């Protein structure tokens, strides 16, 4: 059983999020997405409308959740590009929650993002606003991952069941999968059948269980990161310095740094098994330094002049070097001028069990995992 190491408890256990918080969070979740997770444009627009109509987004600390409460991690599965075109109905998650309550015979006390990275980090806020229930300040991945079994709950032995898959048309599918890997395989096929995107509730459980395993404080971290960058930009200070210093004061994601500053000189991508697989080659300005980043939806490994400087599950995110806007792998372009920021993930994502599920080998990368702060001497 993995413990959550000393996360600094928020001074306040309850916080109502403002539009500014939500916008800040969008930047933070894009950063934690490690290049994946899709753009949160439609979630942001919906949250803006929800707040304008007087709905509230109540964020609570994990410690404030009763042990016996039913908690539901939520998220969307599918292709971000499809979600730009086929927009949600707005009832998908609510129908899923209702089905879960029917199965469990218990009200859902609160929701949280199964994945903090990318647009999935924001979408549970909408459910919370819509249903008038809290969103818990935690998530199941601590970043973004391409597959649904790459979640801490699976790492530490929880079952995904019952899995509730819903779509915009009103289809509700309840799945009892024999393994968590089967759950991924079957829901992936469902997402295609449902037109390229669907809403998934899996790994639901008790407050006690969430306290054991969830990655704590990631929503407030995402807000803090976005806020630091915004304030630095508006004050004309270096947003990257602000970002790094904000991370340093967090107890989980404390080792961050700019790994490279350069321009994309080669971009090679193709699709394999439904994933965008490829690599970006960057060259430094006025130098012969080269950084090669390999990705499979998310950025997986970074090598400077052939030497590995970071691997999954540590976070690797490209930013526009001028605006400090995170750039997802889908939006990478030849000639872009970027900074590559690396970030350590919490200890519970770095155990042997965790690395077996989403370490370098899970993505076919040969080298053993080594913490980013050790490789780069950030200690």
């Amino acid at each position, binding site marked *: 059983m993995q413990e959550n190491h000393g996360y600094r408890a928020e001074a306040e256990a309850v916080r109502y999020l403002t539009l500014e918080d939500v916008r800040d969070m969008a930047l933070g979740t894009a950063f934690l997405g490690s290049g994946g997770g899709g753009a949160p444009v439609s979630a942001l627009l919906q949250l803006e409308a929800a707040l304008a109509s007087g709905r509230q987004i109540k964020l609570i600390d994990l410690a404030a959740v009763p042990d016996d409460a039913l908690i539901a991690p939520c998220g969307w599965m599918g292709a971000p590009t499809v979600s730009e075109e086929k927009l949600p109905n707005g009832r998908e998650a609510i129908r899923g929650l209702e089905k879960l309550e029917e199965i469990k015979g218990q009200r859902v006390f609160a929701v949280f993002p199964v994945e903090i990275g990318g647009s999935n980090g924001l979408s549970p806020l909408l459910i919370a606003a819509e249903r008038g229930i809290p969103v818990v300040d935690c998530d199941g991945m601590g970043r973004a991952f391409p597959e649904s079994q790459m979640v801490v709950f699976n790492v530490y032995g929880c079952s995904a069941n019952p899995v509730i898959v819903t779509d915009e048309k009103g289809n509700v599918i309840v799945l009892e999968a024999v393994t968590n890997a089967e759950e991924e395989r079957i829901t992936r096929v469902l997402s295609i059948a449902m037109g*390229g995107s669907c809403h998934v509730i899996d790994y639901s459980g008790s407050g006690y269980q969430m306290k054991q395993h969830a990655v704590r404080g990631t929503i407030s971290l995402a807000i803090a990161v976005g806020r630091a960058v915004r304030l630095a930009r508006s004050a004309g200070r270096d947003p990257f310095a602000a970002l790094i210093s904000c991370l340093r004061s967090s107890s989980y994601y404390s080792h961050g740094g700019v790994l490279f500053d350069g321009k994309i000189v080669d971009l090679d991508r193709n699709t394999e098994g439904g994933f965008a697989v490829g690599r970006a080659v960057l060259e430094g300005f006025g130098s012969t330094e080269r950084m090669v980043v390999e990705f499979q939806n998310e950025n997986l490994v970074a090598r400077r002049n052939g030497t590995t400087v970071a691997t999954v599950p540590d976070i690797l995110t490209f930013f526009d070097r001028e605006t400090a806007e995170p750039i997802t792998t889908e939006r990478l372009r030849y000639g872009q001028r970027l900074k590559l920021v690396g970030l350590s993930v919490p200890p519970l994502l770095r155990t042997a069990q965790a690395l077996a599920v989403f370490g370098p080998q899970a993505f076919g990368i040969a080298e053993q995992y080594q913490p980013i702060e050790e490789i780069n001497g950030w200690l």
Partner: protein
Amino acid sequence: MRIGIDVGGTNTDAVLMDGRRVVAWAKRPTTRPVEDGIIAAMTAVIGDSSVATSAIQAVMIGTTHFTNAFVEGRGLLKVGVIRLASPSGEALPPMIGWPKALRQAVEGQTFMLPGGYEFDGRTIAEFDEDQVRQSARKIHRAGLEAVAITSVFAPINAAMEERAAAIVREECPGAKITLSSSIGRIGLLERENAAIMNASLAAMAGEVVQSFRDALREMRIRAPFYVSQNDGTLMSAKYAEVLPILTFGSGPTNSLRGAAFLTGCRDAIVIDVGGTTSDVGVLINGFPRESTASVDIGGVRTNFRMPDVLAIGLGGGTRVHLDPSLYSADVLSDDDFSIGPDSMGYRLLSDSYLFGGGTLTMSDVAVAAGLATFGDPSRVPALSDAVKAAVMGRARRMIEDGIDRMKTAAGDVPVVVVGGGGFLLHEKPRGASELSQPEHASVANAIGAAIGQVSGELDRVISYAGGVRERALNDIRALVMELAVAAGASPATVEVIDVEEVALNYLPGQSVRVRARAVGDLKFS
């Protein structure tokens, strides 16, 4: 021979071109309606060259009129909006996120109806003819003259939008209908926004295009006329009347294309130095590099093809903030002065030292440094060599920084300067392999309009499953070339200039989104 015209906010420029030669050019004030300014500029070029109007084969007009009108919320129609997507999309109703004032000016009635397609072509929900008809009747009763129709994945299959349009035509005779599929790309909200924006401009488009027609008639020019699109290619006047939104962004595009033409550069950085800003753009293969991010117009998100232009707050009218006690300083440190970002704009002609005022501008410093001759140099207070060098040096560095930010390759690139404030860049900047300021640079926009080509564009999600990538891409190439010919290109000149593939993450079946574009020279019949 052809005439290129640029109708800007301040000036209307005209050029008369014989093949690749600029025969005559003129600059006249823009008027409202625009007709008189166009006639004045055309009269000047035709008079100067004593060419018979019958020798003119085509007239090309570029204008920022529609962009400005939309951003200012001027003369817009209220729009009836029909979206065929339900049950999808109801969480994000049409016009979500629009600025209040624009929304009030444009929103008529909104209907979210069943319909739309999945990415693989299946139907999301059956088209409901009755509901469409009822909505059309309500639109008609509300007296709305413009209608925008959008359905999910319409860029791949426009059939439902077309069915709805047929019904609206029956129920709302004379209504101006915009289909999202005629505008563009995947990204429903952005495309729907564009369709609504376009519909709101329908009445004005009719008037402005008519005013172009009247100007030509008055000049007794019977040649066809064309309007510049945002990608530097041309559309027929009829098309512009229906899709005025495609002119958005044509201003910077025409100046970039004009610069390419005047210098012969296919790949270069182009800097258009105006009164308030210097706009830095990039030419790739003779065409402007397009922006990949979504483009906000008046606060409304769209996904247009727009040139990727970086505006730097440096122009002829930009203020130089320097304490007069330091005008004759022997040494000037970096903290002693700043440039802009505020500009005198048109007040340059009254408030700068050169024109009798008391404000120090970039033009004052440039004239004092002997880099330009206009106004009355004797009115500019004595500036020390150190001051002149420091200010002009800073201006050069600002431009160098802009070049650096827009460059796509590590090596030095050719830099072309156009626009009225070109004197601000008098020596080759760092990062430039050469610096050119061609003849006629001040009317590069009108030249860009005159040399416009026609294009075809395609944006589809296709599957590469089973290793059919090559065949699929060949089909796309053939199709996009056909589209260019259909748009008026001479078949022999058509080439595919861009094919871009983006894998659809997280989906099996190797689904890929492909965008392709072909262009060709305009066919003269």
